[in-house]
């Protein structure tokens, strides 16, 4: 029986099967190795772009996110390198430099002002002796003699008048006087002592943001506060990532009854009012960890004491409740991904569940993981400041931006900058993390890929 040759339509796009079937019958001689020029000519049409390169390219185009990233980098430097540059310490009481404003008047200006004030109080009011002499002259004109009681009265009146003039006027007038004399505020706070040392040619580091009621430098305290906030934010986010990713991946991968039970637990924790419990956990853990540091030994103790029991209790409190969102997101992703062929292939090759999760599933939802972690940082910072504000967060003398704001409340009308500066730094920090996180989400979201 002769093989029936298929008749092919000349315009058909169907590939010719015959040729393909014959492709295997080529002998090695039919091939020749590519020459060097041919190799060089072979340039890929489009450079292959990795996932991260592509995301970075898109992120770079987002101006807001890049500015936010710049601010974050600046704040990191501010918080971690800054304290090395400033010669003060966060719990150092600078004697004679209490309650400094973040501005100062130079020594010459102060002297000019004093001279002016002295001149003003002198003119217009006569001295006491003059007044007595006047009164005596008056009395003699009337043909009487001034009694000692009268003289004492005049003296007393003059004294009161002078005191009133000094007390009342100098309060109101220094401001206007400064304006009249053209004395301007100079940046940064210096104490009187430091100004003199500076005038003597010594290098004195200014109190850029002024000092608080104990003479502690606010700049350094803000730096340390920012450091605390950032470490809490980043460590808490990492802890959340660790717990949430593991839990979510296991729950999603195993499915069935395991998933059902794990999801019930998630639902319970999800509806626990976090703030209430975090407040309690942070309060309860702090003394326990402090005792642990004081009584135990070993590497774990060293680790805890380096970070400080305060911070660790905050991390744990945060990590214990906030992983739920992360685990839900990861679970959703894993549920989708585990249907993919490569997972089946891996399973057919005998890979264990743990390996599949670690090597195949988690790397494929890295975008979501990164975005969620990044957005977790500001919310951790938010919570930390909140707890510190209520007095259950980081405890003194270690400053936190939240506790600095609380401390400043009592004198907020006179020393507004003490309230404004930490609040501002805190808000900028959270804002830039939020904006960067938003940008990152846009960059990593595959739906937005064009």
């Amino acid at each position, binding site marked *: 029986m002769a093989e029936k040759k298929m008749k092919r339509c000349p315009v058909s796009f169907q590939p010719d099967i015959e040729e393909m079937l014959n492709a295997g019958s080529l002998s090695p001689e039919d091939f020749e190795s590519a020459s060097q020029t041919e190799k060089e000519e072979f340039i890929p049409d489009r450079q292959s772009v990795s996932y991260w390169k592509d995301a970075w390219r898109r992120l770079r185009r987002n101006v807001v996110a890049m500015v936010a990233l710049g601010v974050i980098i600046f704040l990191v430097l501010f918080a971690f390198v800054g304290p090395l540059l400033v010669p003060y310490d966060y719990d150092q009481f600078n004697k004679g430099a209490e309650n400094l404003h973040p501005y100062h008047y130079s020594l010459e200006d102060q002297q000019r002002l004093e001279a002016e004030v002295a001149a003003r109080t002198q003119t217009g009011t006569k001295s006491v002796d003059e007044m007595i002499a006047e009164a005596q002259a008056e009395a003699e004109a009337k043909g009487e003699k001034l009694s000692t009681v009268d003289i004492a009265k005049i003296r007393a009146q003059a004294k009161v008048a002078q005191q009133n003039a000094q007390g009342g006027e100098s309060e109101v007038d220094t401001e206007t006087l400064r304006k009249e004399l053209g004395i301007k505020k100079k940046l940064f706070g210096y104490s009187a002592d430091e100004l003199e040392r500076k005038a003597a040619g010594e290098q004195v580091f200014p109190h850029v943001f002024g000092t608080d009621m104990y003479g502690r430098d606010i700049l350094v305290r803000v730096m340390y506060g920012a450091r605390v906030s950032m470490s809490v934010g980043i460590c808490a986010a990492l802890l959340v990532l660790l717990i949430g990713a593991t839990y979510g991946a296991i729950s999603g991968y195993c499915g069935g009854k395991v998933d059902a039970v794990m999801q019930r637990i998630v639902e319970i924790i999800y509806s626990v009012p976090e703030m*209430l*419990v975090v407040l309690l956990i942070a309060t*309860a853990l702090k003394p326990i960890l402090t005792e642990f540091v004081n009584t135990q030994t070993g590497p774990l103790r060293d680790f805890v004491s380096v970070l400080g029991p305060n911070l660790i209790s905050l991390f744990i409190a945060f990590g214990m409740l906030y992983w739920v969102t992360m685990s*839900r997101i990861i679970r959703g992703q894993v549920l989708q991904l585990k249907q993919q062929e490569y997972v089946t292939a891996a399973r057919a090759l005998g890979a264990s569940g743990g390996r599949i999760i670690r090597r195949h599933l988690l790397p494929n939802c890295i975008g979501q993981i990164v975005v969620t972690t990044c957005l977790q940082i500001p919310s951790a910072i938010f919570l930390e400041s909140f707890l510190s*504000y209520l007095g259950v967060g980081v405890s003194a003398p270690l400053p936190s931006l939240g506790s600095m704001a609380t401390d400043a409340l009592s004198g907020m009308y006179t020393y507004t900058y003490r309230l404004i500066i930490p*609040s501002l730094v805190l808000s900028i920090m959270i804002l830039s993390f939020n904006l960067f996180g938003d940008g990152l989400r846009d960059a990593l979201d595959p739906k937005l890929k064009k």
Partner: protein
Amino acid sequence: MGKYVIKRLCMALVTIFFVTCLTFLLMNAVPGSPWLSEKTPSEATLAALNAKYGLDQPVPVQLLKYLQNLLHGDFGVSLKMQKNRDVLSIILEMFPVSAKVGAIALCWAVLVGVPLGCLAAFKRGRLTDSFLRVVCTLGISMPSFVVASILLVVFAGGIQALKIFPTLFDPSQGWKTYVLPCFALGFYPMCYTARQTRSAMLDSLNQEYIKTARAKGLKNGRIIFKHALRNALIPVITYLGPQVAFTLCGGFVVESVFSIPGLGRYFVQSIQNRDYPVIMGTTIFLASFIILMNMAVDILYKIADPRINLTKGGE
């Protein structure tokens, strides 16, 4: 539907039980006792006090006893802050103050946030949108104490003309006293709602039925409020539940800044005083309230949009 409500109620009860046990154990893990004050009482007095209030028993026994009393509606009596007063009566006295401030804050947050979100979505990409986006992102980046202290500085600072509103809470001054605390408390939820509404509205405005409405020649106002907003509101409603919780808890800070005699401030003080029954009472009360609110929102959600199948987790 009935099955779903029952299931949710059971879950809520389990959650409240979980919170109760967790709080009890945590509370007992905190060193210190309610009897600590400037004058340390003698050993005998301490022992007598502990015995009187049952603090000498092991923690599990105490917990069981507490749960038993709780089932009978007995929250115990305060140990320190208002000595021997029934905790439930304290809660019922303080809660309305917090609830009033919180409710006003949430109301203005929604009433302002939703229209702002609509406006931003409608003017997408224009100056209004960018401006609102900056304001709202700033709003969700400022903790409530920052907002509260900025308000304090502005309204109680040097400028005489701005001293309209009292900066410390005083109910005798009528509505004026609520303005600053409610603004501070509602600012975050307002910005959050506006952001949520904006993204929901953007989704909704891209739908086919909006095109149909436009093709019919409807006016913009009608399209936005009748067609787009109704569908966009559903995701916004979901965030209301957690926001009730946030407003109540955010109340801790605002209450302490403005010295409002509310439950939040009392809760924080009770932790510092180790007044165990008050801690337990307020935690259980607030937690139950928040959990039930979340549940109510979920059920309302189902009623508002019959397309949602809650039994599948509603994700």
